């Protein structure tokens, strides 16, 4: 009945949605942010530990939400580890373009390998109401890096 939805819900997504990686609280975090899509009920909290050069040494999150939002957050925590803050923000921007358009003209650059991992979420572009589920984690990461104490929302 739902076979054509396997493009959206690939096994990787279902797996990360069921068993999100880095799903924990970081007690000694340097950056912290919250994200909420109040209309859907997706909510998350994100922690970042920076190394002495300001790179993302460890990234972890906790939250509740749909498979897309949890899988996206899980994949993000794995993808941005070891990146500089500028690289992490750049990844987020490229990912948002991918999620909205389904295409990724900037994916061939320095972050090619990382974007390849995130391609599994490109299917959301066909579901306009679900794009914000996929991008919430990245908005939350920006909020954490800004450390402005505000709450992120992709609605």
């Amino acid at each position: 009945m739902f076979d054509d939805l396997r493009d959206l819900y690939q096994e990787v997504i279902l797996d990360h949605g069921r068993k999100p990686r880095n799903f924990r609280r970081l007690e000694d975090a340097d950056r912290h942010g919250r994200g909420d899509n109040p209309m859907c009920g997706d909510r998350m909290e994100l922690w970042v530990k920076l190394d002495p050069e300001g790179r993302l040494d460890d990234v972890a999150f906790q939250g509740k939400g749909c498979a897309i939002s949890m899988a996206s957050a899980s994949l993000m925590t794995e993808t941005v580890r070891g990146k500089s803050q500028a690289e992490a923000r750049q990844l987020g921007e490229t990912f948002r373009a991918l999620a909205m358009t389904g295409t990724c003209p900037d994916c061939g650059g320095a972050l090619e390998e990382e974007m390849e991992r995130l391609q599994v979420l490109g299917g959301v572009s066909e579901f306009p109401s679900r794009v914000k589920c996929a991008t919430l984690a990245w908005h939350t990461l920006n909020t954490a890096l800004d450390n402005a104490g505000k709450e992120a929302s992709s609605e």
Partner: protein
Amino acid sequence: MDAAAVTGERGRVFDLARIRADFPILSQKIRGKDLVFLDSGASAQKPRQVIEAMVRLQETGYANVHRGAYFLSESATAAYEAARGAVAKFLKAGTEREIVFASSSTAAINLVAHSYGSLLKPGQAVVVSEMEHHANLVPWFMLRDRAGIELRICRVTDAGELDLDDLEAKLADGKVGLVAVTHMSNVLGTVTPAAQIARMAHEAGAKLLLDGSQAAVHRAVDMQALDCDFYVFTGHKLYGPTGIGVLWGRLELLEKMPPFLGGGDMIAEVTLEGFLPAPVPARFEAGTPPITEAIGLHAAIDYVEAIGMAAIEAHERRLVDHAMARFSTLDGITLLGHAQDRGGVFAFALDNAHAHDLATLLDRVGIAVRSGRHCAEPLHARFGVESTCRASFGLYTTEAEVDFLAEALGKAREFFR
């Protein structure tokens, strides 16, 4: 089954196939699939009779109302006031002066919160319940914050019914000026015991506002029998247009209430020193009203009354019984609330899928349900769930559609296994 013909009130036949043929949108295909529209609780679809009445007015009878001495304005005014008369009859109001047109239920509740709310004194309280739509919650928070009125929240039982013992406790000190509760929950489907709540409120010296946004669609509502003091409902859930809602209030209460919005039509006299407000209901209808929408609402009321509210209620009762029976055979589905008296609104959660993932799957096969918190965040918190999917029925919903939903839910659970 789609063509089920059941004898309705006064021998009229509830002909589902014919009813469905009145709704042009129901023959739409969604990605090549039949539309299974189960989101009427958010906004119902419109029969051709409503659409045509609105087009007819715009093409042949439209002008502003209460303002012109020319033919079209007079005939538009007559049509607008005839809509008020139809609403009065629909609600069994004492007089059509008790019918105030607003832009929505939300606007009508805000009107009462501002206008009647201004007559409450600091130290007095308003009671709402945990199962209110945000529209019957936030205006009262705003009144609390603006005027120092205490807000008390009546609890809901695990079954999803209003906790009448708690209501009694909340009313006990005699400080409550108004009880404002839903007549039918937009999440749980619970129909609240209005006459009993009215008795309790009145014995404690409080007035009662019922939010009938859901209830007025599913059964006959009689202002004399309900014995409430204010009742609100909205056009777009009653197969009418958006942009029009109704406030019914007891005449002696409305006459004591100050205006809410200021502007044209709500005044008896204006000088550069000030103004005198118009008598009710004009006092509460500032500005050019939703004229075409009032005519659409009139057509919608004519439509449901021609079928018969009792016949609609009986049809939906069969659907609810059928849905309860089908849902009870499904594994992994939790229904929110199981009130004794309920209408055709079901909020549910699947044990292995989030509401949004489930809604995306259902959409793929043409089923439209709402997902999220349905403008009732505190109620979801009360039941300890982040979000749910909600299926809500209309007079055009069929048992076959309920069966298809049940089948899809089973398949969705397998999909996420």
